[in-house]
Structure formats: C-alpha cells, structure tokens
C-alpha cells in the first residue's frame, strides 16, 4: 500500500510541475491586473522552441533558456495590446493562444516523430536520494526543484516586500499606485513578462523533460487548466502548488484506476468540470469581491481617462 501511495505521489509531482510553473506566472500577471488567456499559446511555443533548440544544439539548458525567451516574447504581444493599446484582455489573450497553437504547429512539423538526442536528467540529491522509500522524492529533474523552491520565494516576495505591495496595489487600484509615483505600465509589463517566462518554462518542461518529444498540440489544454488553477488558488502561490498537484494527481490516477474499471474519460473530465465550476462562481460580482479577485483585473489603465 505504501508503495502504491509513494509511486502515485512521485508521479504526481512531475505531472503537476508544468501546471505549477504556468500557474505561478499567471498568478503574478493577474495580481497586476492583467488576465492573460494566452497561457496555452505561450506554453506550446515554449514547448516547440525548447524541443527545437535542444534538438539543434544538443544542449538542454540552451533549449530551456530559449523556451523561456519564446514565452516572454509571446507575452509581450499580449502586454502591448492589452496594456499599451488597452485592447480587451480577453480578446487579446485568446488571439495569443490561437497564434501560439498555429505557429507551433508550423515550426514543429519537421520534428514530429524525431527522438530528442538529450533530455533533462534527474538530479540525485546526495544522501537523501539514498533513503529507503522517501529517496524517490529526491530524484527529480532540476525544473521540478526550481518550481517547488519558487513557491515560498514568490509568496515572500508577494506579501513581505515593498515590490510585492506595489504589484498587488497595481492590480487592486492602479490609480492609487500611480498617484504614489508607481509606474503602473512598467509593473504590468514585468508581471505579464514573468507570466510568459513561466509558461515558456512549463512548455519546455513538457517537451524536453516530462515527455521528451514534439507532438502537435502537446500541451493539450494545460494552459486552460492554469487559468482555472489561478482562480482556484485565489492568486496565492502556495495554494497554486496544492491545486497543481491535485490536478497532476488526477492525471496519474487515471492510469492507475483504469484497470479497476473506472473509465479514464471520467477522470479526464474532472479538471475541466472544476474549471467550469470556478468560472461560474467568479462570474458573480459579489463573489469575486469576497474571494479577493484583484479589483482592477481586466481594467486597462490610463491616467487621463475619467
């Protein structure tokens, strides 16, 4: 039994890592007041770029860096349209997702079915990885550890630092932040770019570590789950981790429970059912306010606008 639990858990963490990376980024973007529905698009661009660069250079680190850069570049499109041009954030984000899915399909054609010469290897933490049973938890790849370390780091930054106060204020009341000399545009750009970086990383994690291969549309809706998880987490990094592993666990269980006669489709649906539920809940204004959705989420800011 313990073996079963440990094996499910050790599979759960990598299964939830892409979701965690993406959600941490989106939490920050939305905390600044910018909803980015382009996560799916940024993530898949990260995946294809990560795969292509790793394939070409035979260097995983370069691949991951390139993927982050691709994520950032994608997010800049959304930032420019929604922050500078003040276009509706939903429209701009959706367009980004479609753009990402399209371009990645085009770029990735040549890589379909190609094996990756190198992949991101697990890091064996000295001593700890030799422990019986628990040792399993210390043989993940570096991105998994990074994603876990980011959780307390981003929490601390968000709640305990001057910059965290600035970020949250910009998402709650940009006019207040502006009047205190804060550069609202800069903060929002940086937050959206951070979201892009993290989505790019999440994509690379999928294509060079988790399932090293390029398959068209391989993110398979993970970007949308990230959006739901962001709300589910109430914009908090720690709860984002809980949510990401919960959803990751569901994926793992699918395969484990199938032999027991529980149809995979049922479990497959779960994340999306939860997503729909959450979306229904937050569509109500009063509820949004109570659970602490950033008050200025989706509101473009302009100084002279009355």
């Amino acid at each position: 039994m313990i073996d079963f639990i440990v094996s499910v858990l050790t599979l759960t963490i990598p299964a939830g890592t892409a979701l965690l990376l993406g959600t941490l980024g989106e939490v920050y973007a939305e905390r600044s007041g910018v909803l980015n529905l382009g996560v799916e698009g940024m993530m898949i661009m990260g995946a294809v770029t990560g795969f292509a660069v790793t394939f070409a250079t035979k260097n995983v680190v370069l691949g991951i860096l390139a993927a982050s850069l691709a994520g950032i570049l994608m997010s800049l499109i959304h930032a420019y349209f929604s922050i500078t041009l003040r276009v509706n954030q939903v429209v701009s984000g959706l367009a980004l997702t479609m753009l990402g899915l399209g371009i990645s399909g085009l770029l990735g054609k040549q890589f379909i079915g190609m094996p990756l010469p190198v992949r991101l290897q697990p890091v064996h933490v000295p001593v700890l990885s030799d422990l019986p049973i628990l040792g399993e938890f210390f043989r993940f790849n570096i991105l998994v550890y990074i994603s876990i370390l980011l959780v307390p780091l981003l929490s601390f930054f968000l709640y305990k630092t001057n910059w965290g106060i600035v970020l949250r204020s910009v998402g709650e009341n940009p006019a207040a932040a502006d009047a205190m000399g804060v550069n609202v545009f800069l903060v929002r750009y940086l937050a959206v770019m951070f979201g892009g970086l993290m989505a790019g990383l999440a994509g690379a994690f999928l294509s060079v570590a988790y399932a090293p291969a390029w398959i068209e549309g391989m993110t398979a809706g993970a970007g949308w789950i990230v959006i739901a998880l962001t709300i589910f987490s109430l914009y908090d990094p720690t709860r984002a981790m809980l949510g990401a592993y919960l959803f990751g666990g569901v994926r793992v269980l699918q395969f484990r429970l199938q032999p027991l006669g529980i149809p995979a489709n049922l479990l497959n649906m779960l994340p999306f059912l939860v997503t729909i539920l959450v979306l229904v809940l937050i569509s109500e204004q009063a509820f949004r306010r109570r659970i602490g959705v950033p008050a200025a989420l989706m509101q473009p800011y302009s100084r002279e606008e009355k």
Partner: protein
Amino acid sequence: MSEVPTAVLMKGITKRFAGVVANSNIDFEVREGEIHALLGENGAGKTTLMNILYGIYRPDEGEIYIYGKKAHIHSPKDAIALGIGMVHQQFRLVQTHTVVENIVLGTGNGLRFEEEEVRQKIVDLAQRYSLAINPDARIWQLSAGEQQRVEILKALYRGAKILILDEPTSMLTPLEIKELLQTLRRMTEEGNTIIFITHKLDEVTAVSHRVTILRQGKVTAVLETAKTNKVQLANLMVGREVLFRLEKPSVERGSEVLRVEGLEALSDKGLIAVNNVSFTVHRGEILGIAGVAGNGQRELLEVIAGLRPATRGKIFINGVEATRSSIRERINMGMSYVPGERMTALVPNMSIAENMILKSYRTAPISKGAFIDRREMLNLAQRLIQEYEVITPGPEKPVKLLSGGNIQRALMARELSQQVDILVAAYPTSGLDVGAIETIWRILLSQRPLGKAILLVSDDLEEILTLSDRVAVMHNGEIMGIVEPKEENLEKIGLMMAGALKLEQEQWV
C-alpha cells in the same frame, strides 16, 4: 507687497479635453505657509489644475515653478520629489490593503519592507498632527473620515510640504470637518503650505488666508480672505447674483405613500448595511435622508428600488406590500427611482426622445400595436424639453451629449411625466453646477403641491435642509432620529450623523 516666498507658481496653464477647455491660461500663485482656497463651481476646472500640479495631467501650455525654481512635472513621482502631496476627492486607496501597506506603497528602495520602522514613523506622524489611526486596519473597515487621514498621512510620510486637498469636506461629518480644519492650521504653523479646493463659501472664509476663484476654466479673482465676503465670492464664482431663496410654501401632509418597517439588508461584502430601518413618506412631503456617505444609504435605496433583497422587514407602497415585488411591479405601483449615477438610468447612445419614452413605450399614445408612434414620441419629448428646461439642439440628439445638469433634467422629466406617487431621488444634484442645482431643486419642490411624495437621499446636508419637510439621519445603517430641518436642530443632526446621538422613537417627528 508681502515678502513671503512663493511655494507654487503656475503660469499660463491651459488644458484641453476633447471638446472642453478645462483650464484656460490660468495663473495661480500660492505663498509658503498659507492655506490657499481654490474656489469654483463643479466643472470650473479646479481638479484639472491641481492634477496638473501633481503630474497626473500634462498641461497643453504653461509653466510651473516650485519655490521659485522651474519644475518639470511629468508624473506624480516628480511632484512627490518636489514635496507636493495630493489628497484626491475620490480617495486613491487600495481597499483590501492595510493602512501601513497603503502608506508605504511605492516608497522604500530596499526589497524587504521594514514593517516596524515604518509603523513607528506612521504612529509618530499621526500623533504629531492628531490624525489618530489604527495602522493595521484594512481600508474598507475605515470610515470616510479615517480614510482621509490615511490619505493625508500618505502625503506627510513622503515628506510633502505642499499639500493639495480636493474637496476634502464632502464626505465628513460637521465635527470631522472641524477637526480637519484644525489639523490643517496646525500644519501651516509648521511651515507647510495647503491648497484647499472647495465650492463651499463657508469653508473659504473659515480657513483660508487667500482665495483664487475659478469660473469656466478661467481665474476671475485672487483675494485676501479677510478683505472679502460671501456675497462677493458667490458673485465671482457663479458670475451672477445667486438667489437661492426658493419658495417653499407649506403643503398639507396627505396620506401615507411609502412605509418601510424594520428593514434590514446586507452590503456586497455580506455585512449588515441597513439595520432595522423604519419610516413613512406621505403625499405632499419630502423626507430627506441625511448622513455621511457610506452609512447604508446606497443599500437602503437599492432595497426600496428593488435592486437588492431585504433580509428582514417590509416595504409598503400605497398600503400594499411590495417587499418582494419586482422593479416593474414597483413602477406599476407608483414608484419611481432616480439613481445617483444618472447614466445608469439612461441609454447614452439613444436619443433624448427615445430615452424619454423608455417607461411609456408600452402604452398609448406612444405604443401603436407592435410599433412606436414616432410623431407622438417627438411631441412628448418636445413638450418635456420645454417644461423641464432641458438645453439641447434637438430631441433626436443622443443623450450622452448633454451636460450633467441637462441629463438630470431629462431624467426627471421622464420619471415625473409618469403616474408617480413616490419619487425616490438619490443624490439628484451631485456634480451639477449652481444653475442646474437650482432647477432641480425647483422641480423637486414643485411636486409637493401636486400631492406627490419624495424620498430624497443626499450627501449634501444643505440640500437636505433646504428641501426636506422632515430629515431622517442615517448612521451605520440605522436611523438615528427624524427631526424637522430647523436651525435649532442643526447640532442634533450633526451629532446624529457622527453616531453620537440617537433619539428615542417617540421623539421622532
């Protein structure tokens, strides 16, 4: 002339917005250590001028000098660096954050924010200027007066020597106003300079050393307060004699139209916002509800209008229970609700005429089967435009092109041309200029002899006292008492607004 150095000098400031010149070649000078009143009607351009000084707007023309040095103010950051602070009329606070978080926002270059150090500095400042505040409270838990203290502390924390206050008294109780003025005097004694925006003459004479008067974007005069009087100020501000002596003939109080009993309702946050409220409104009378903004007036109005459910209590219109009635049913029962945000009651892009028939399109003569009789519609609109003095190029212009005063007239025209027994008027003159206020007040008073009942809610105590036959004072969701708007009741009303006095129900009129 005096040798006091100049703190602020604005020269030839012009600012245009699409269609309006908000500031036209304005010269504005403030001396160090004075309280300088900036007086003008709504729309005169006061806020615009100060937003320019604070770096929120960029002027189209003009120059600014601070303490004699030419200043380039491109953003609030520059203004703050020059020692300028501004308390906006709509507070710029993050509601969900604590007082400390709001005050440190954007300061401190270190990553870690030194909470203890910051807190100590805030407590010291608060003590020095008697601005008592709990540094750990969240903004939404604070009264308007307390929020204003946070705003002032924000400026002081950044070392502001020149403090701009935009209509700072509009949300305060009479007692809080007194305290504020005291704090301001104290600040000038310590060498600070205050710019005090207002449209209330009393405040100018009470607190300022000098006053600059704006009218339609231009300076009409700069005066020493000691050498002027309210009549002169009023003339300079409005540009004509202000009469404001409204006829208010006594009207026989008729039968009861609206009755609310033990009404209770929740705010958006789920807290009790309306607490056991009971009153009646009769034909031929205006019942005014006074109180500091945010004490449950909005929620009370919404419950009565049918926009918010009552969690307890009953509402009767003409003796028939309407507690659970829909908005449409309430309209049919004779209620009309004119909300404070006027535009929410109109369709901005539709014509004035179409807006005027929004409530009567279902019935003859406007309705012709499935169609609308456009000729009838235009006739009706023409008539209402004349009767209610709406200034417009024509009834077919979109309503959004009208000025605030004309929008309110058009709205009143629509509502009062219906079969109305009880008019619920929320903040009917907020943001309007003196001329428009006068017409709206006339319109409201003219309903009394017609036997209509009016429930009036306003933040403007003067308006309540001028129009009402009885005044109910609301504090923290409760009715503290109902009194007649007489001179000798003024102190009581002030105390009730502050929550310091509650009259026994037997003493209510």
